[in-house]
Each structure stands twice: as structure tokens, then as C-alpha cells.
């Protein structure tokens, strides 16, 4: 009996994060259904869902999601690698940091979305423009957090590594990089948010495919259900990438007391 209630309780607490979104959906559907929210202002969740099924059937939805995800991932990979490498170089070689850090800080302080007019002038509305913007937005959080992570590795551990003859690459592989990893992953989570934000703006302003294009196109025909669908898609994709980042944290930071409480194969002594 006791165990049953505890199991129920645990299941209830696992569902806890979903109560508010579900309640919002229910109220929204109710208010729309009885006509308090006019259809021209906001279609009901049911209508949005129906629009989603229609688009799914003719393949437009899948295509839009694929195009947008591809842009996001390529931009993230390019910007993330550059940011990580710069952070690594600047964290490891002081001369390099002196040389590049203030330049990077200057560029970092330009809102990257302010570059849109310039980027359109350079690349038009092709793929390159969006990938460039995403890469630029993603670069800095990863750069900053990698640099910070490398700097904040416990100097005591580095000294220990030196006593035990760890030098050069081995010291980085065994001590510095694992020590910087929690911070790098914070950067990854942060930049995943920026990745979607940048993409939404870029696709809304100038695109010929993708979720943002779908939304803008639907607006011209006043298909508000499709517009709302696009917005919800972004929310879902954002949540999905956050889940992936969290999963990476749990997987790679098993040793960390904060993430690995259950992962440790601890035995009592």
C-alpha cells in the first residue's frame, strides 16, 4: 500500500512540469470554443492541430522542419567549433589571448541580429546568410564559457598532474578539458537558445523555405492557424534541444555530484 502511494506520488511529480502547459491549452481551447477569443485573433489549439495535420499530409511541414533544423545544426556546428577552438587557444596560450581577446569582445558586443541588412547584402537570402547569422550568434557563448572553464580548473589539480608527470596534451586530456567540460556545456545550452532565436528572426525576414518562411507565407493569406503552428514548433524544437543538452550533461558529467547522484556505482563500505 505504502509503496503504491509512493509510486503514484513519484509519477505525479514527474508529470509536474506538464501541468501548466496542459492547463493553458485547455483554457485556450475552452475560451476559443465558446467564442470569447475570436478566430481572427487566435485560432483554437484544435484548429492549429488540424492545420498541422493538413500540412503534414502534403509534406510541407516535414520539409519546413527539415530545412530549419538543418540550418540550425550547420550554423551551430560551425559557430560552436570556432568558439570552442578560440576559447581553447586563448585559455591555453596567453599570448594568443592577448592578441585576440579584445577583438573578440568588440565583435561580441555587436548584437548579431543588427548584421542582418549587411548579411542580406552579402549573401542575399540564400542558406549562407542564415548559417552565418546562427554561427555568429552561437560562437560567443561557447567561446566565453570554454575560456572560463579552462581558467577555472583547480590549479591544485594541475599541479598534481605535473607531479605525476602529466605534460602537454596528456595534461589537457586528463585534467584541463574534463575540468572545463561543465562550463562548456553551460555554453552549449545557452547557445542552443540563441541558435533558434537567430534562426527565427533570419527566416522571418528573408527566406524561401523553413518554418519562418511558412509562418510569413501563411500571414499573407491570413492563415493564423499556420502562424500559431510555426510558433509552437519553435517552442517544441527549443525544448527538444534543451533536453538533448541536459542529456549530454547527465551523460558526460556523471562524476559531478550535481548530475550523477544515481549514476554512481556506489557501494556501502
Amino acid at each position: 500500500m505504502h509503496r503504491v502511494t509512493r509510486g503514484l506520488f513519484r509519477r505525479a511529480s514527474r508529470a509536474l512540469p506538464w501541468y501548466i502547459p496542459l492547463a493553458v491549452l485547455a483554457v485556450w481551447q475552452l475560451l476559443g470554443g465558446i467564442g470569447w477569443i475570436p478566430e481572427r485573433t487566435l485560432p483554437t489549439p484544435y484548429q492549429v492541430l488540424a492545420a498541422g495535420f493538413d500540412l503534414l499530409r502534403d509534406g510541407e511541414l516535414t520539409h519546413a522542419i527539415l530545412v530549419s533544423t538543418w540550418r540550425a545544426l550547420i550554423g551551430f556546428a560551425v559557430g560552436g567549433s570556432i568558439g570552442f577552438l578560440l576559447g581553447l587557444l586563448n585559455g591555453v596560450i596567453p599570448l594568443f589571448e592577448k592578441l585576440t581577446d579584445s577583438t573578440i569582445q568588440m565583435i561580441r558586443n555587436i548584437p548579431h541580429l543588427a548584421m542582418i541588412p549587411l548579411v542580406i547584402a552579402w549573401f542575399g537570402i540564400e542558406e549562407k546568410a542564415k548559417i552565418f547569422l546562427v554561427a555568429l550568434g552561437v560562437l560567443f557563448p561557447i567561446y566565453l564559457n570554454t575560456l572560463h572553464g579552462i581558467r577555472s580548473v583547480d590549479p591544485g589539480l594541475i599541479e598534481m598532474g605535473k607531479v605525476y608527470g602529466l605534460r602537454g596534451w596528456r595534461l589537457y586530456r586528463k585534467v584541463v578539458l574534463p575540468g572545463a567540460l561543465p562550463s562548456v556545456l553551460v555554453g552549449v545550452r545557452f547557445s542552443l537558445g540563441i541558435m533558434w532565436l537567430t534562426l527565427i528572426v533570419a527566416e522571418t525576414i528573408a527566406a524561401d523555405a523553413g518554418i519562418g518562411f511558412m509562418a510569413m507565407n501563411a500571414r499573407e493569406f491570413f492563415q493564423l492557424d499556420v502562424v500559431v503552428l510555426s510558433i509552437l514548433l519553435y517552442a517544441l524544437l527549443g525544448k527538444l534541444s534543451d533536453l538533448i543538452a541536459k542529456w549530454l550533461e547527465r551523460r558526460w558529467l556523471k562524476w559531478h555530484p550535481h548530475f550523477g547522484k544515481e549514476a554512481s556505482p556506489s557501494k556501502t563500505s
Partner: protein
Amino acid sequence: MASAFRQGGLAVKDFLNLNEAAGETPLADEEARLSQKQESGMSVELDGVAKSFGGKPVLQNIRLSIRRGEFVAVVGRSGCGKSTLLRLIAGLDNASSGTLERDGKPVDGISPDTRFMFQEARLLPWNSVLDNVRIGVVGSDAKSAKRKAYAALELVGLQDRAGDWPSVLSGGQRQRVALARAIVGNPRLLLFDEPLGALDALTRIEMQRLIEQLWLQRGFTAVMVTHDVSEAVALADRVVLIEEGRIAMDLPVTLARPRERDNGFVHFERLILDRVMTPAGRPAERADTAAGRAPDPLS
């Protein structure tokens, strides 16, 4: 805990057998032990060593000669320069002047023969206990490195925790893992920078016994910095007192092992404590005459 310690004692024999199989000197009797001590320990020679940080002298004119296999404790008030001395011997820092030799060769950085135990365990939190010990293995293939690390863990009685993360261990267990990591490479000189300072009294005594046992059986030279005079008397062949960057006292502890807290023990303890407590402004006795005699309260 006590049973874990006894287990550790048994494991010492296993470990030695293992080394024997690996072609090292068997330990047949006391004589063999002593001769092995001569071989496996490293001598340390310091002459006129001084160290200053930013113009501020921390150590001045240190002259110290440590025999092979000797256990030397360095005591002193905090900030007297005793940790700096240890770091110089380790090769972690360079002396400002004077000569430092290990086994007759000038100290030049850290060598794999020398291991250093820090005040904190300094285990890598992202490696398992076993992998942390493996860092101390020198030049072995993965399989035998793992075996050696496991044997060293048995020595300190923690073989059951080999797969755990360091974060789930207690402070004393972490220091035992650090000890296993330090000895797994068969160092000839082991330097301790107050590694037991943060442990509770019981764990401390247990660790002291473990260190003494390992030292007796492995024959390395040991230098231990501590602020605890009774720890120094319990473990060391010789106690060196550092005061304001100079050696103020160099006292051989002529007590038999294993050491009991008897009258002789208390005598040595008081001898050193009295000297520590003498205000620095007073004319200190010369290091060579201080040995074996309490300072005259009227001098």
C-alpha cells in the same frame, strides 16, 4: 574501519609478493629489509638554500642532509616556510640560491622517483578511484597498470571502492586513495605536506599507522611537514624545526618502533613543544647543541 586496516596489512604482503614476482628483492628478514631500504630510498642534500618571494625571504641558509630511507618530520608554526622547503625538495619551486641534491644529483624539476602528497587529496573528480590511482603508475601497459593500481588500493584497504567516484568518499578515504596513488609507482622519496591536517583524530592515527607501515616495508625516504608535534614524534627518525625561515632545531627521535605514547614519547614531545614555544626574539640555541636537551628556561 579497524578491520579495513587489518585487511590493508594483509594486502601489504600480497603487494610485496607481487613485486617479488616482478623481479624485485625479496624481503626475507630484517637485514634484507635494511639493505633494501638503502637501495630504495633516496638521499637529499641541501646546502645554503634560500628562497624569497618578491624580495621577501622565506627560507634562509638551510643546510639539511637526509639519509636514504630516513623519515624526517619538519615542524614549525604556520608561515615559517616549512611547506616552501618541501616544495623546493620536490622540485615544484626553484631555490633562489644554494644547492639542492637528490641522490647526489642537482634537483631539476619533478622526477618520477619523487611523489608529493598534498594537504588536500587532489583526486580527479571525473575519474574513478581506480583510475585516479592509475595516474601514479609509471611506464606500464594498460592491463598491468590496472593490476598495480588495484594492488595499491588493497594496500590502503579501499579495493571495494575501486569503481566509485571520489566525490562519494570521506575525507580520510580520499587521502588513502591519494596515498595509494603516491606509492603505486614505487617512489624513492615521498614528501607529505600536512596530508592528515584536515582529518579527524581517529582517522589521523589510522593514517599515521598506515604511512609508517608502508614506509617500513617499502623503504622510501620520507619527509613530512606537519604542525602536529606528536605526529612528528610518532613517525619520524628526526624532527627538524623551522623558525622564521631557518632551521632552529634538528632532533633525532631515538624511540623504538612501534611507538607507544609512553614517558619517552612525552619527553620528546615536550622537548620540541618547549622549543617551539620559545619566543623568537630570544637567543635561540644553536641547532647542533639543541639535540637531546631541553632549552634552559633562563637562557
